[in-house]
């Protein structure tokens, strides 16, 4: 009964290691965009929300699912857009006009 849980934990742990490797290379200058961008990525919960709200699990489950879709989508759209807005402002000394 627990085999699938264990294999999922394996995936989780390996992904944490990948995360550590990748994130430690992000310079402090970009830590705020990193947070807002990773925030958008955590909006991946929308997948679960879509399934729950669309698969006909009963009225209450559907309503909960729709609210979850709205929450997660706010996360995704807000996160990616605001990250892009910030990253557009970062420019080098010799670069052209910012913004």
């Amino acid at each position, binding site marked *: *009964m627990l085999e*699938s*849980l264990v294999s*999922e934990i394996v995936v989780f*742990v390996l*992904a944490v290691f*990948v*995360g550590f490797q*990748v*994130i430690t290379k*992000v310079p*402090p200058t*970009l*830590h*705020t*965009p*990193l*947070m*807002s*961008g*990773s*925030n958008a*990525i*955590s*909006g*991946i*919960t*929308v*997948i*679960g*929300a*879509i*399934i*729950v*709200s669309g698969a006909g699990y009963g009225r*209450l*489950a559907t*309503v*909960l699912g729709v*609210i*979850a*879709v*709205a*929450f997660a*989508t*706010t*996360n*995704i759209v*807000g*996160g*990616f*857009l*605001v990250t892009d*807005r*910030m*990253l557009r*402002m*970062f*420019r080098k000394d010799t670069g052209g006009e*910012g913004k």
Partner: protein
Amino acid sequence: MTALAELAYLLAAVCFIFGLMWLASPATARKGNALASVGMLIAIVVTLLDRSILGYEGILIGLVIGAGAGAILARTIRMTAMPQMVALLNGFGGGASVLVASAEYLRLSATGGAALDVGISIQFSVLVGAVTFSGSLIAFGKLQDLVTGQAVTYPLQKPLNAVLLLAILAVAAYLVVPDSGLAAPLADLFGGDAAVPLLVLIGLSLVLGVLSVLPIGGADMPVVISLLNSYSGIAAASTGFVIDNNGLIISGALVGASGIILTKIMCNAMNRSLGNVLFGAFGAGAADVAAGGGASGGTYRQVTAEDAAIMMAYARSVVVVPGYGLAVSQAQHAVRELATLLEARDVDVKYAIHPVAGRMPGHMNVLLAEADVPYDQLWEMERVNPEFDRTDVALVIGANDVVNPAARNNTSSPIYGMPILDVDRANQVIVMKRSMNPGFAGIDNELFYASNTAMLFGDAKASLTKLAAEVKEA
């Protein structure tokens, strides 16, 4: 789930990983963010095409509301309010996890209950999601000044939280294995309805989230936001366990790892352990410290804007140390103007950024980028500290504890051991401050009384504008 869909989720996860890799340089970061959003789009489209989806009305409503709210938020938010926005989005991520797990629980309990592994995943998802949700809302409230920024303490704080956690674990255990002998008293308590214990679990977890963030003071918010960012990732991963989806598990793990790393960086920058930040209620006792040691006084030297401007105008190198006071008075643009004038006079201008200069990791860098300061002029603490020996003038604007030499040489100081910017080693130091009041941690700063320090009192923005005008005439 079909094999094709599984592969599409893997592709989405790979997009996220490459997106985060490209965040390693400001030159490729925008591309990375765009790639990550493509990954998200792939994941969403594949899910919408899933055969188990019967109706689209609800999904569409949710997507439209969420996309609208997200777009408005992203376009209108001020850069100084970025910590609030991240806190709010963390909370939404947690909230989504609670809702998905709850819906799965209701579905499964209507059809004879969940298997042990799914049951554990669901309860964990509810717990982490709810703590993230309410904790983030309190953090948002503190940052937005809706809730007091002070560390809120109350009697029996730790025992109360421990009891709360135990109660949560008991209810969660009951929800996972309702028929075990130990759970019998709870079964009587809850009656037969499956929704009641779930609501109790959600309620208790929400309270735990509130109680664990309330005691944390405003100065420690960078740590808390990073930690809640990590929680939101773990909540997403736990949703992946609930619906058996590796895409969610990998993505959630990436975000969880990111949040933990940032939390650790913030803790190191304040020389505090995570436990000390979460339970120490730093700032609550600091008033005594200020009252006791703050009056140490000594004499300080005041300088006029004219003299300060001349010092900088004829310097070879100036290092600007921006603190949160700069952002509060919205003076980034005024700094940038002053720096441009100095550069026109062949003065070398750098900005020294302490890791906790803003209210979240990297916040000060964003605020300066918004004011068109090129990112290669922003120097990190480790890199800039050796430069102060060769610096003619260090201009400290609204920073206090992060430039306090007591952190280096006064073992009895509460901030002893905290890494600081060594501005006192510069030839001349100009400190811009409203008054002699102590900073966030309420600790007196011997830098202000040093022989090479001159104080320039007043509102940062007004003073900077005056400085710029004087430099122009010098």
